[in-house]
């Protein structure tokens, strides 16, 4: 069985092309089932950044043509943006994808779940099942053994991480949204996904008048209005702090010009971050992710190598099995010939002879078996298998 990958991603195709071949779960499942006919295996990984078809088939050329044709039928212009990989390179690519190393933001965690779903929806057999299981294992290992996924990769994620740095668990923490820009909505969504609640969205001027009362209650303020000047003065916050009895207040100012008086950050128990602070944090954490990516690449390469060794050993498994069967056949035939002598032995002596002859066969075949598996991993497996077949006359009886 050969492993073939045909696909496209954000590295090769702009969004106008990628959207032509983007598939939802049902479509991906149908396509994998169609490609997985006639004894093939197929999995379709489709996310906003990539659509990739993994096919396992005896004939790699045919599998590649079928996969490319399937993608071309979705978007005729996609052909020049397709990449094609086979066997070792295809597996290594899959492992990198699962670990988030091929993602737009290195180490992003969503892709691991997407690969898992693709595996579940695919038409898998022994090869693809093993490839995807090991890829998911590699992805989890990278996340466990490196810090690649720990730091926030966007302004909204940085805001949420800062909130956790101040409050710990965000369950039952309340957010006040001052204005509702795209980034502030993302930040609020991020905080909500971690358990926080939005208590007030103050868009209009009337709503903003309620801020003064609410400031005494909320834990996080996210500001992103289009107001030309400051919306929240230091005196207002200082007054609210008296009613807060020492409770901490995190303020995130995403607006330009700024909505929140910079002097607020000097008040006891107030932590103020503006858009520049958050962007600098993201730049720093992205550089950390890139550094961690080097360690992650080494983990992925080691895991991909293990898969390659297993895959390559499949080439020599039939030859090894035939060799062992032939040896066992000879051993039993020779014991049969010696039956007249062995008949005089009692049961325990007979068992000892059986054990000794079996041991001799095993010891003789151990090294050739190991060497053939090693040769398979080094791409000489087929040659060795042929040589063994020829030297021991394996399969000649059938002819």
């Amino acid at each position, binding site marked *: 069985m050969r492993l073939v990958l045909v696909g496209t991603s954000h590295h090769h195709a702009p969004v106008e092309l990628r959207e032509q071949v983007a598939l939802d779960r049902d479509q991906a499942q149908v396509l994998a089932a169609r490609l997985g006919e006639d004894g093939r295996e197929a999995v379709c990984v489709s996310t906003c950044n990539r659509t990739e078809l993994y096919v396992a088939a005896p004939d790699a050329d045919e599998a590649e043509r079928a996969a490319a044709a399937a993608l071309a039928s979705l978007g005729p212009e996609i052909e020049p943006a397709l990449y094609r990989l086979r066997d070792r390179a295809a597996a290594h690519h899959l492992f990198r994808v699962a670990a988030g190393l091929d993602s737009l933001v290195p180490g992003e965690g969503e892709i691991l779940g997407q690969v898992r779903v693709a595996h579940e929806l695919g038409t898998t057999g022994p090869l693809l099942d093993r490839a995807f299981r090991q890829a998911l294992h590699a992805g989890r290992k990278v996340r466990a053994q490196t810090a690649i996924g720990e730091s926030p990769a966007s302004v909204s994620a*940085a805001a949420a991480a800062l909130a956790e*740095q101040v409050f*710990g668990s965000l369950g039952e923490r309340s957010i006040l949204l001052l204005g509702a820009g795209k980034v502030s909505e993302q930040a609020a969504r991020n905080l909500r996904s971690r358990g926080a609640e939005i208590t007030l969205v103050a868009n209009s001027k009337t709503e903003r008048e309620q801020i003064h009362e609410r400031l005494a209650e909320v834990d996080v303020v996210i500001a992103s209005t289009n107001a030309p000047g400051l919306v929240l003065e230091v005196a207002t916050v200082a007054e609210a702090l008296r009613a807060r009895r020492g*409770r901490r207040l995190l303020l995130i100012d995403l607006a330009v010009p700024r909505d929140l008086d910079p002097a607020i950050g000097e008040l006891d128990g107030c932590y103020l971050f503006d858009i520049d602070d958050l962007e600098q944090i993201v730049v*720093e954490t992205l550089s950390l992710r890139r550094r961690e990516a080097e360690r992650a690449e080494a983990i992925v390469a080691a895991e991909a190598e293990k898969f390659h060794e297993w895959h390559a050993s499949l080439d020599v498994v039939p030859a090894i099995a035939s060799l062992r069967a032939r040896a066992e056949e000879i051993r039993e035939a020779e014991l049969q010939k010696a039956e007249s002598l062995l008949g005089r032995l009692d049961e325990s002596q007979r068992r000892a002879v059986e054990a000794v002859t079996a041991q001799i066969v095993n010891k003789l075949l151990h090294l050739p078996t190991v060497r053939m598996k090693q040769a398979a991993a080094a791409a000489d497996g087929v040659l060795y298998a042929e040589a063994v077949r020829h030297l021991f006359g394996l399969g000649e009886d059938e002819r």
Partner: protein
Amino acid sequence: MAELLFWPALLLYGEAAVGYFGDMRHPGRAGRVATWGVRFGWLLQTALLGVQAAREDGFPWGTWASSLDLFVWLVVSAYLIWGCRRPYRLLGLVVMPLAVALLVVARAGGGTGIGSASHYSNLFLVVHVGLVLAAFAGFTLAAALSGLYVWEERRLQTRPATILRRQMPALATLDSLALRTVAWSVPLLTLGAAVGLGRLVARGDRVDALIAVTAATWLVWCAYLGLRLFGGWTGRRAAYLALAGFALVVVVRLALPATHFA
């Protein structure tokens, strides 16, 4: 035997102190190695205390130096509860160098070897010395948590780009852990000190400098507890008060014990 346990324990604590320093600069392996240093060092020190107790036929806390040995063990024990967790590794940067320094002082005073049996009863040593030192270990940990709070809050206010590089406990968590530690430690000190006072009165002894400063320490930590529970104190103010309380603990443990044990 005691020598065979003391030096490896000291070495492992020293390795942990250096490891935590390395972890501060490059978080990762150095921190993990340091944590294992603390664990193994603590096991060896536990064995050391066991050997001392067996050889002296009683608890070996009858001198200021040997009580300092016990104090180090209690501080490291308290640290181990949280120190193994990654966000709290930085606490080790405060706790482990302190543990090393105090263990060296304890050795210089002859507190880590085998001495003669104490003239205090075992019950008195456990209830008075044991409880008072356990409380002081708790205050030390609370002060370390408070120090970490002040440092982390300062970072949140100066907003460096590297603020999220290191996994740290949340401010709210540090604050509440310090409170909980003190809430356990104050009753221990109260009970331990009451037993000591009872003995003092029964024997007609005089109040020495250490007893007076211990009483002041007790008052400061009671005030901490009261202000936090009923006065609404949280955060930086409470952290500074904890650090002030710890300064008194240092005086009690290092400057005055010789007079008391004499």
